[in-house]
C-alpha cells in the first residue's frame, strides 16, 4: 500500500473516531411538544387548558360511570343485559365492578391532567405572560379539579388527595384523606377559580359564574356532612345561598327558553350552560362522547350502529311526572308511540316503540351536519352544571333547616325552572318538592344519586327509606289509551339498602395495588 493511501485512510479514521456532534444525541419528538418549551404565551396556556374541557381526560368517567352511577344506581333507569349495571341496580356491587373502576380512574385522570397543567403554568411558563393570565389558566384547571374531587367525595367519601402527580414516582402509595378535608380542598379550588376566572369568556369556557355556581352546590352538600340530626350547618347553608344568589342575580344569565332544546347539539353551550364538556366529532374511541350507545335503535344512530345499551326509565321515575310535565318527560325519555321528527330526519323521523332514554340521543351524523360524527363521538356538549341547577340550589339553601318556605327569592327562581317546563308554579317549598323537582329536571344527567347522597349526610333514615321504597321496575305504555302499566315480571331482586349503600367501594384492584387505602383515612390539613 502506498504511503499516500495510508495517510488518507488514517485521516478518515481519525475523522470517524473523533465522534459526532453533541446534537447527535438530542432527539426531541417531532410530533409532540415538550412542556419545557411550550408555555410561551397566553394562547399556549389556553391550548393547554382547553384539553381539560373534554376528550380523553373526561372520557372514562363520562362514558363509564356518570349516568350509570347517577341514574341507574339511584333507581331512575335500568338495563338488564349488562352485569355491571345490574349490580348497581340491585345493589350487589362487587369490587370487580367495571363501572366503579371507570368512574374512579376517570376522575383521577382529570385530576392528573389539571395538576400537571397547574404545575407547568407555575413553573415552566414564560415570565412574559402576565400574572393575571397565568392565574386565569390556573383557575380553569382548579375549577376542573374541584369538580372532579367533588364527585369523588360524594361518591366514595374518603379518597386520597393528590396535588402533584410527580411525587407519586417516589411515594406511590397513599392513604385516603378524610372526606371533610376533600371537600375543603374542593372549596379552596373553586374559591380560587371564582376569584380568578373572568366574568365572560369564549363560548364554552368556564367563568366566575361557573365557579360560584359549583361552589354553592358544594357548600350545600357540605352543610349536611356529619350533621346526622336532620339539621344542616347554617354557616355552610349561608355560603351556599351567598354564591348561588350571586349567580342568580348578578350573572346576567338566564334559562334557555326551551327545555327540549337544551339537549339538542344546535344549542350546545347556550347561556344556561355553566359548565359543559366540550366534545367533538371524529376523534375515535376513548376521546369522544359515546352516549349514543345508549340509543334505543341503531337506525337513528350515526352509521346505523351502536345502539347497545338502551337505558329504560323505571316506573319509579315515571310516576313523578305530572300530566302537564310533558316537555321534560319527552326530552328525557321516550314512550312507546312517541314521534321524534329530528332523529334520522331524512327517513322521516323516529317512532319510538319502547321506553328508553331520549336525553343525549341527538340522531345521526346527517341530523347534526357532522360527517365525521360516529357512535364514539357525539357532538352534544352535555352540561355538568346548568343555571337551573344553581336556581334549585339557591332555593334549597334558602329553605335551609326550615320545614318549608315561601321566601320570595326561593319561589322566584324555583318557579322559573317550573314555568320554563310548562308546569304550574309552586306556592310553597319543602325538602321533598325540591328533591323531586331536581330529579325531574335533571333526569338522565347523572344528578339524582348525588342528591340522595347529599340528603343521606344529614338525614340518613330518609335517604335509605327513599331507595328502599322505590318501584324499581320497568313499565309498558299503550300509546292509544295513554296508560302506563308497571311490569309485573320479576325484575332482578334488589337488596335492601343501609346507610353504607351511599358510599361506593374502592375498586378491589386498587385496594390490591395500594393496601394503605384499607387503613382509616387521615387528615389532609
Amino acid at each position, binding site marked *: 500500500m502506498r504511503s499516500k493511501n495510508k495517510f488518507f485512510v488514517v485521516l478518515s479514521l481519525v475523522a470517524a473516531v473523533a*465522534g459526532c456532534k453533541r446534537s447527535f444525541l438530542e432527539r426531541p419528538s417531532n410530533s409532540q411538544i415538550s412542556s419545557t418549551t411550550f408555555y410561551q404565551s397566553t394562547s399556549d396556556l389556553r391550548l393547554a387548558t382547553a384539553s381539560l374541557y373534554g376528550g380523553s381526560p373526561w372520557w372514562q368517567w363520562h362514558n363509564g360511570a356518570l349516568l350509570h352511577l347517577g341514574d341507574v344506581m339511584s333507581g331512575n333507569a335500568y338495563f338488564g343485559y349488562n352485569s355491571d349495571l345490574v349490580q348497581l341496580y340491585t345493589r350487589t356491587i362487587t369490587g370487580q365492578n367495571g363501572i366503579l373502576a371507570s368512574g374512579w380512574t376517570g376522575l383521577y385522570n382529570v385530576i392528573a391532567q389539571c395538576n400537571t397543567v397547574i404545575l407547568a403554568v407555575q413553573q415552566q411558563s414564560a415570565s412574559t405572560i402576565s400574572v393575571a393570565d397565568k392565574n386565569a389558566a390556573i383557575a380553569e384547571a382548579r375549577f376542573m379539579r374541584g369538580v372532579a374531587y367533588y364527585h369523588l367525595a360524594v361518591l366514595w367519601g374518603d379518597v386520597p388527595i393528590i396535588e402533584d402527580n410527580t411525587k407519586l414516582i417516589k411515594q406511590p402509595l397513599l392513604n385516603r384523606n378524610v372526606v371533610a378535608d376533600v371537600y375543603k380542598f374542593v372549596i379552596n379550588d373553586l374559591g380560587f377559580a371564582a376569584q380568578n376566572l373572568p366574568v365572560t369568556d369564549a363560548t364554552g369556557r368556564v367563568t366566575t359564574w361557573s365557579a360560584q355556581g359549583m361552589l354553592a352546590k358544594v357548600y350545600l352538600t357540605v352543610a349536611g356532612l356529619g350533621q346526622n340530626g336532620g339539621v344542616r350547618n347554617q354557616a355552610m347553608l349561608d355560603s351556599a345561598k351567598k354564591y348561588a344568589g350571586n349567580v342568580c342575580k348578578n350573572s346576567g344569565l338566564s334559562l334557555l327558553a326551551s327545555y327540549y332544546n337544551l339537549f339538542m347539539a344546535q344549542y350546545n353551550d347556550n347561556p344556561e350552560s355553566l359548565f359543559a364538556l366540550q366534545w367533538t366529532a371524529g376523534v375515535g374511541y376513548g376521546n369522544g362522547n359515546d352516549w349514543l350507545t345508549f340509543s334505543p335503535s341503531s337506525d337513528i344512530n350515526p352509521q346505523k350502529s351502536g345502539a347497545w345499551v338502551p337505558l329504560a326509565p323505571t316506573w319509579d321515575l315515571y310516576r313523578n311526572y305530572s300530566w302537564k310535565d310533558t316537555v321534560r318527560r319527552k326530552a328525557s325519555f321516550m314512550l312507546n308511540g312517541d314521534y321524534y321528527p329530528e332523529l334520522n330526519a331524512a327517513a322521516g323521523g323516529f317512532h319510538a316503540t319502547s321506553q328508553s332514554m331520549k336525553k343525549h340521543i341527538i340522531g345521526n351524523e346527517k341530523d347534526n351536519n357532522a360527517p365525521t360524527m360516529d357512535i364514539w363521538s357525539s357532538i352534544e356538549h352535555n352540561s355538568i352544571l346548568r343555571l337551573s341547577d344553581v336556581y334549585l340550589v339557591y332555593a334549597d339553601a334558602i329553605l335551609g333547616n326550615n320545614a318549608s318556605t315561601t321566601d320570595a327569592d326561593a319561589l322566584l327562581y324555583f318557579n322559573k325552572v317550573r314555568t320554563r317546563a310548562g308546569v304550574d308554579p309552586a306556592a310553597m317549598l319543602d325538602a321533598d318538592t325540591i328533591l323531586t323537582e331536581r330529579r325531574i329536571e335533571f333526569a338522565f344527567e347523572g344528578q339524582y344519586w348525588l342528591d340522595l347522597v347529599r340528603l343521606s349526610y344529614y338525614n340518613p333514615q330518609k335517604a335509605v327509606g327513599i331507595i328502599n321504597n322505590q318501584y324499581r321496575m320497568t313499565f309498558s305504555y299503550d300509546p292509544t289509551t295513554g296508560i302506563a302499566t308497571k311490569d309485573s315480571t320479576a325484575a332482578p331482586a334488589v337488596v335492601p339498602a343501609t346507610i353504607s349503600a351511599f358510599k361506593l367501594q374502592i375498586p378491589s384492584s386498587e385496594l390490591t395495588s395500594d393496601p394503605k387505602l384499607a387503613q382509616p383515612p387521615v387528615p389532609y390539613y
Partner: protein
Amino acid sequence: MKQGNFPHRTLSGSHTRRLLWGVFIFLSFFAGASAQAPPSSKKITGQVVVAPDGKPLQGASVVVRGRPGGQQTDADGRFSLDVRDADVLIISYVGYLSKEVRVGSRQEVNVRLEAEDRSKLNDVVVIGYGKVRRPDVTGSISSISGAELMKTQPTTFDQALQGKVAGVVVQQVSGQPGGGVSIQIRGVSSISGTNSPMYVIDGVIIPPVNDPGNGSNPLNSINPAEIETIDVLKDASATAIYGSQATNGVVVITTKRGKAGAPLINYDGYAGYQEIPKKLPTMNLQQLATYINARAQVWGFDNRPEFANPKYLGPGTDWQKELFRKPPQMNHTLTVSGGDARTQYLLSGSYFQQQGMALGSDFQRYSVRLNLDNKTTNWLKVGTSLQMAHVFENVNSTASSVINSAMNLTPDIPVKNPDGTWGGVTNTNGWVNPVVNPVAIALLIKNQRKRNQLFGNAYAEVQFTKDLALRNEVSGNFDFSTQDYFSPSYTFGKLVNGTNSGSSNYSQNIYGVFRSYLTYNHYFDHISLNAVAGHEAQSSSYENIGGSRSNFPANNVQALNAGDATTAKNSGDNGLGSSQESYFGRINLSWNDKYLLTGNIRDDGSSNFPASNRWVTTWSGAFAWKINNEAFLKTVNVINELKLRLGYGLTNNQGIPGNTFVTQLTTVANGLSGIAQFQSNLANPSVTWEKTNYYNAGVDGSFLNNRISFSFDGYYRKTDGLLLKIPLPLYSGTTAGYSPGSMAAPYVNVGVVSNKGFDLRVSSTNVNLRDFSWKTDVVVSRNINRVVSLGAGDQANLSQKSYVINDIIEKTVVGQPIGEFYGYIFDGVFAKPSDFTKHALPVDQSGNPYPISPAGGGIWYGDRKFKDLNGDGVIDTKDQTFLGSPIPKFQFGINNTFSYKNFDLNVFFSGSVGNKVFNELAVSQTNSQNNTNFFSSVLNYAKTALVDPTGSASDVNNVYVTNPNTHVVGLRNDNTNGNNRPSNLFIEDGSFLRCKNITLGYRLSEKLLSRVHLQSFRVYATVTNAFIVTNYSGMDPEIGSWNPLQAGWDQGYYPQGRTFTVGANITFAK
C-alpha cells in the same frame, strides 16, 4: 522466536493434536509476520481426495495462507504451487471441512478432505467486532448451526432456538404464521418490557424489540435457510463489547457466504400442512339447550322456546371445526455460491408460504440475498451482505379475536343461513349476547400487512501492516410497511355493522450505523495479543402516515379514495427516533495457550436519557484457563479439552423509549377551540441507566476422542435501578397499559432484581459404528428470578389487572419473582349447611358479612368458597396469596440424531417445568352465569337438592349440593360472592414435554448421484410439534409474552400447529 519451541507433530486423528497443530499454525503465522521467512521457494505438487473412498476432488481451492492467489484442483484433484517450507496451505471445498497443512520439507502434499458434519458447531465464534476460535472463548457463548436450525422447519429463525441453546428461554407469543416469539436469555432482568436480546445480523444491529402488536414478529423477514450460524452471547464478558443494548444478551446471526471453489447450486424445499393440536371442549347444541333450560328454571325467566326439547336437537355448529383448517405451507430456497481466492459470492432467493390454521391468517415471504467478498488488493478487502425481503401477512384472525368468538358463539347459530347470508344471533331474548360470526369475520375483514425490507452491510477492510487492520462498516435496515384494513358492512342476525370503513397506513423505519475499528494482532514471546478499538454511531428515524374513510359505495371497492371524503381522517408522524454513540475497546491476551484474558470497555451515549445522565461506561473482564494444555494433563489422553472460565462485568441498559424525561404535549381535537394540548405522559426527569452486575463461571470439557463434551455455566446477575414503566395505582392518572385519558406512566429506576442459575449442555456420541451412529445433545436451563427491592421503602407495588376478572391477577413484590400470580385459594363450593357456619364468608368493604340467602345479594349453595388465609374469620382482599410464577423452573431440550447407512433420523424434545399459566379464556367459558357459549365442564355445575322435598328451598338447613366436588358455580343469578375473583382455580401448571420435531431423511448414494450429475440429494419427512404431554387444559401451555408483568396469560391464544412436511435438499455438481 524460534519455531522449535512449540510441539510439532504431523497430522493425526487426535483432536487434541489437531488443536495444537492449529494453534501452532496460528502462532507461526504471527511468527512469520515478525520474522521474515527465508526467500528460497520450491515447487510442490499434490492431490486432494475425499474421505472415505479417496476419490479425487475437482475444484477444491488451494491457497497459501497470507498470500493472494491460489489454485483450484483439476479433474484429477491435482495441483502444483510455488511455496516455501514455512508456508501453510489452506485446502477448502464447500461441504467439506477445510484443512490447513504446513508444507515443511515435503515435495508432495496429499490431502484428504472429510465431509463437513453439518451438525457440528463451527470452529469460529463471533465475539463482537471480531471472531475467536471456539477453544479460545473466555465468555459464555452458545452456538447453533444453520443446519441444526433447519431441522424443525421453522417459519422464523427464533422459533427454532427453543431447547437448543442452554440458558435461553424461548416461548411462542402467537402461533399465527410468522408470529412472535419471546426470547429471554438467563431470566428477566428488566420489567420495562425489553427483555429480549439484541440481534446482530451480519453487522446490522436490531435493537431489542417490544411487542409489535397483533402477535407479529419483526424478525420474520429473515429466511432461516440462509443462516450459517447463530452465536448467543450470554454473560457480561461476552456482551459488554456491544454496550448498552446488549444487557439481556446478544444473538449474533451470520448468514452463509460463498467459499472459494467450484460453483455450487443448492435447492432446498419442502411442502406440508398444519393441523390444530387440540380442540377445546365447548358445549354442543343439545348440551347447551339442556343447560339453558335448567338455568331458566332457577332464574325464573328467559326460557328459550326453541330449546324446549333438547333431545330433538342436533349437535349444532362446532365453531372450532368451522374456524380451523388444515392449511398447506411450502418453502423453496435456491442458492448459488462459489468464487475464487479473490472473490466469493453467494446469491440466494427464496419463497415461503404458509396459511394459518385459523381462517384469516396467512404469511408469505419472498427474499433475495447477495453476500459478496472481494480481496481488491493485498491491503484492501471489501464486501457486502444484502437482503431484500417482501413479507405479506394477513393478521385478521388475531386482530379480530376470531378464536375467542369461536369459543363464545353458541352452537344454535349456523355458519350460513339457508338463504346464503351469514348466520348470527337473531333473538337476544334470554340474555343472549350477539357475538360476531367468527368465520364470517375471518373471511370478510381485510387486515393485511406488507413489509418490504432491505437490510445489509458493506465493509472495507484495510490492512496497514501484517498486525494492524482497520475495518469500516456501514449497515442499515430499511423497513417499509403498509397496513390495509377494510371492514365491510355486515349483518349477522341482530349484530349489524351498518357502515363499511377502511384505513390505510404507511410507515417506514430507517436504521443506520457507521462503525470503524482497528484490530491489532501481535505475538510476543509466549503471549499473543489481540486488541480492538473503535467508534460507532447509530441512528434511527421513522415516518408514518395513515388515513381512514367510511361509507364506501360498495363493499368490494376498498381503496381509500372510494370512501366518503367527508368522513376522511388522517394521521401522521415522523421523528428522529433515537441515537447512540459509542467508543469501545477490547484486549485478548493468551499466555502459552494456557491462560486467556479478555478485557472490554465501552462508553455509550444515548438520546433516551436527559443530558445529565446521557453517558455511561460498560466494562467487563474474563479469564480462561485451558487446563488440558498444562503439562500434567498432556498425557491424559481421555481428556481432549478442559477449560475453566471466569467472568465479571458491569453492563448498562437503556431499554426505554426516548423523551420520557420531559412531559410531552399531544395535539388533540377539541370541541372548545378546535385543538388542545393533552399531556400524554408523566415525566421523570431523573431517569437514568439500569445497571447489571454480572458474574459468570463456566467449564467446558471434551473427552474420549470428543465423544462426550459438555459445557456448564453458573451465573449471577444483579440489576440495580431497574427501569420500569411503573404501574402506579389508578389514582395516579397514569397507566402502563391502555387506558384512555390516562397519561403514560413514567419510566422509573425502581429497585433491584436478581437472576441466578445455570445452563448445561451435554453432547454425546453414544454409538459410532461404520453404518450406524447415535448422538444425543441435552440442554438444560435453570433460572431463579427474585425481586430484591422495589424503590424507597419497597412501596412500589407492581400489579397487572385482568379485564376479564376486573381484578389484579399478577403481582410483583419484593422477595418473589417478577410477575407472580396472585389471588385467592379455591376451597370447594358451599355444599352443606355446616359450610356456612364453619367456613369464612366474604364481607363487603365495611367488613359486614353478606347474608346467607338464595336471593340477590346473598351467599348461597353453589357459590365458591375461598380459604381464609389470615384466619380472621372473613374473606376479603387480605386473603390473597401468591399462586406461582409464569417463569419456568427449568427449560430443556433433548435431541437425538441417528444415522444408519444413508438414513438419518432426528428426534427432538423440548420441555418446560414448573411454570404456571393463567387460563383467562376458561374464566368466562366456565362461568355458569355467562351468556355466551360454555365449556362442557359447566354441565357439572353445583346442583342443589332438598333434604325434605316439601320443605323450604331457602332454608339453609334444607338444602345441599349433590356434587360437592365440582368447581363450577351453581345456577345463581347473583355474584355477590365474587365467584370469579382471581384464584388458583384459573392458575394451571404449564409444565410440558413437547416432541418438537421428528425428521427422517435419506441421502442418495454417491453411485447414483454421479450418474445424474448431482453432488448430494437428500429427501426428508418431518413432523413438527408431533405431540405434547401436559396437564394444562387449554390449547397449548406454551404462552410467551413480551411483557414480564403479564407473562403466562392464555387469552384465547393462537396455538402452535402440528406440521407435516416432506422436503428435499439437492446440490448440483458443476
